[in-house]
């Protein structure tokens, strides 16, 4: 009778939970069973492991083989268990030394010829290994990302055959020269002075922005340039965001290089696509945009239920999916940039093409977004098509790096003052504004005469706070408020 234990992990949400892979090889009718609530992919490991072990030149025991995945009540997903199962069986039958896997977490899928293939979520596995004080064993291809985890030793194993040499590869060196992130630059946008200013305010204060304009006016062009003027991700943010990308099986190298993610789901995106879901649960676009930008083009075309799922994460910075197999929490703190046409035909207010929409149709189109979501759009700005003459004659706009410098300065200033304005509310916001008595009296008067809603007052103050930060002003004064009033929502024009 021979037993061995190898450590593995399974992904739940964006976390990898440690799992022990116990192999028991005993005399009896030859067979191979896996217990411990594995999904189909885990159960199929039996056939892959058997072939891979043989192909690598090892013996697959002609005995009764039982593999238990502990803790047994935890559901286990995916093909990452192939490698630990094979290692556990080889250790139990003393074909490889136990010391090799003693303090290691192994993860990898096996091909029938013994090759070890990468699986999604390496970063999560790496974090789990680091937490349990293990080293990580896996294919070289995935270990690059694992270097981001400090103090973790990695050992590469690209094929089971390599084990016959008795040694594993040492940790691959982290690629220090990160590829130059290729983010579009603001200097490619000419004109659009008002929209550029709004984009800068959004970047400086972390505000959500809604751009309204006819088709082809440059809304998407502008939105794509937001990540380029945002500060780079810091260490903690990099890891958080890369983790989501890793779990979703996406390339996390740009995120690890510090570039904020930019996610632009199509408007046919389902609720699960936006929020995450499925079985096993999978992160949605909102989580992939964590610490970055979520861009929703054609906002009113999204299904209302998908739009409503945006609300909770916008408040909490995360979202929790509750499913039959338990609850998973995905991080989702993003800046929402949305774009929409001013009316169903798209040409309301266009200088060239007449709009053919009836008043009521335009109103219905705009109200499709819903008040609660509209309330979270701090900045609303009109983006119009630029006259071709001006487009050709225009000088190139200011470059992203210049704008970014101002954004960084402003964010530093705001941090010294007490935090980004977008996250402030209520009394905290009022005290952060430090308005003079006269200014606040003036503002109150305006708010009353122009019928501002309570939400509109809060949004105007938030934006005014960021504008003051851009000026490096401790106190919000009337000129800051005046500019902020111009970024108020559509309800102002559609009231009455």
């Amino acid at each position, binding site marked *: 009778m021979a037993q061995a234990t190898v450590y593995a992990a399974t992904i739940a949400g964006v976390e990898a939970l440690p799992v022990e892979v116990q192999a028991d090889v005993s005399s009896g009718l030859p067979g191979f069973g896996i217990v411990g609530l594995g999904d189909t992919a885990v159960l199929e490991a039996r056939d892959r492991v058997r072939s891979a072990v043989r192909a690598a030149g090892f013996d697959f025991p002609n005995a009764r083989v039982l593999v238990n995945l502990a803790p047994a009540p935890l559901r286990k997903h995916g093909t990452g268990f192939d490698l630990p199962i094979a290692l556990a069986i080889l250790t139990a039958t003393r074909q490889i030394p136990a010391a090799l896997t003693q303090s290691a977490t192994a993860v990898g899928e096996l091909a029938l010829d013994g090759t070890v293939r990468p699986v999604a979520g390496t970063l999560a596995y790496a974090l789990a290994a680091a937490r349990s004080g293990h080293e990580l064993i896996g294919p070289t291809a995935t270990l690059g990302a694992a270097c981001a985890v400090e103090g973790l030793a990695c050992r590469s194993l690209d094929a089971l055959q390599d084990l016959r040499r008795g040694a594993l590869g040492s940790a691959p060196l982290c690629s220090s020269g990160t590829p130059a992130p290729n983010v579009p630059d603001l200097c490619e946008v000419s004109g659009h*002075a*008002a929209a*550029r*200013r709004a984009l800068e305010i959004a970047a400086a204060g972390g505000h959500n922005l809604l751009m309204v304009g006819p088709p082809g006016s440059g809304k998407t062009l502008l939105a794509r340039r937001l990540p380029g003027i945002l500060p780079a991700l810091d260490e903690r943010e990099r890891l958080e965001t890369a983790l989501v990308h890793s779990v979703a099986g996406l390339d996390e190298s740009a995120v690890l290089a510090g570039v904020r993610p930019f996610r632009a789901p199509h408007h046919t995106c389902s609720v699960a696509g936006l929020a995450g879901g499925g079985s096993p649960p999978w992160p949605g676009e909102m989580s992939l945009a964590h610490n970055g930008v979520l861009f929703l083009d054609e906002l009113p075309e999204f299904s209302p239920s998908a739009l409503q799922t945006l609300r909770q994460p916008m408040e909490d910075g995360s979202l929790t999916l509750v499913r039959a197999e338990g609850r998973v929490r995905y991080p989702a703190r993003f800046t929402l940039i949305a774009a929409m046409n001013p009316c169903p035909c798209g040409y309301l*207010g266009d200088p060239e093409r*007449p709009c053919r929409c009836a008043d009521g149709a335009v109103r219905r189109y705009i109200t499709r977004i819903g008040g609660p979501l509209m309330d979270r759009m701090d900045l609303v700005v009109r983006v119009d098509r630029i006259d071709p003459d001006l487009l050709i004659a225009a000088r190139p706009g200011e470059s992203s790096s210049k704008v970014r410098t101002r954004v960084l300065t402003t964010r530093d200033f705001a941090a010294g003052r007490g935090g980004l304005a977008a996250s402030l509310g209520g009394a905290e916001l009022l005290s952060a504004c430090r308005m003079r008595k006269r200014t606040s009296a003036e503002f109150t008067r305006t708010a009353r005469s122009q019928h501002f809603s309570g939400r509109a007052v809060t949004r105007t103050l938030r934006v005014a706070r960021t504008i003051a930060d851009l000026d490096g002003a401790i106190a919000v004064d009337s000129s800051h408020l*005046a*500019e902020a009033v111009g970024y108020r929502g559509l309800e102002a024009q559609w009231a009455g």
Partner: protein
Amino acid sequence: MGRLAQPRFALSSNDAAYPACLRDLSDPPETLYVVGCSELLRPGLGVIGARRATPYGLESARRFAGWAAASGVTIVSGAAIGCDRAAGCAALEAGGRSVAVLGCGADIDYPTASADLLRQLRTSGAVVSEMPWGAPPTRWSFVRRNRIIAAFSAALLVVEAGLPSGTFTTADFALDIGRDVLAVPGSINHPESRGANRLIRQGATPITDVSELGQALEVAGLCLSAADDPLLASAPTDAIGRALLADPMRPDDLARALELDIVTVARRLGELEMRGIVVRTRDGRYAMQSASRARV
């Protein structure tokens, strides 16, 4: 819908009270259905314009109709959304008299958005139609209606018209029966002004202020009592205010035209908006609030 309390009557073309001006038409209506005062059924100033009006068009309609009504001229219009309704409302606000000519029965509130105006007109003005009581609106009845507006107009003022525009049929009817056609010129840039500008090129009298309107109305044979221009503009002082007075504009265009920084423009516009001097229109431009023209 309840029965209307106001006096209502039908005038057949044989009646002595049948308005003489309608006989100028080649096909005068057999019967004219009226709710309101019969004394108003004399030629006045017709004010018509685009339904999908810009702030400029609405503003012109209000300004000229308001002034003419205050000068004792009856304003004739179609009560349609946009310029027509603005003209009718301005006439009543100025304490003047106004007549609406409908394409449906004179007792029907159509368009519904003008229901308030129509109710007021039935009490203190008149609502007329050649369609029988209770007749629903149809597409063709509005073109026929336009000839009655033309007949009731000693002079016809087109405040704003795009291309193509229903206002042209009214202008054509007016020319056929020898009425004066006046037009408010618009920006050469704006598609909604092309129709009015074309009318001027074809010989309509351009109207740019109330004194010109006064002269044109005298030529058309209407007598005026003295009235002030209610919206006479005093010279605005700063460049942004002056620019908006001329034409509603977008912040980007303002900044470029005046060679100002966008932040300066945005702050000044916000300040003017907070003071209620400018408003943001639905198409994202900033326009001078009509009542505040004199206050900039």
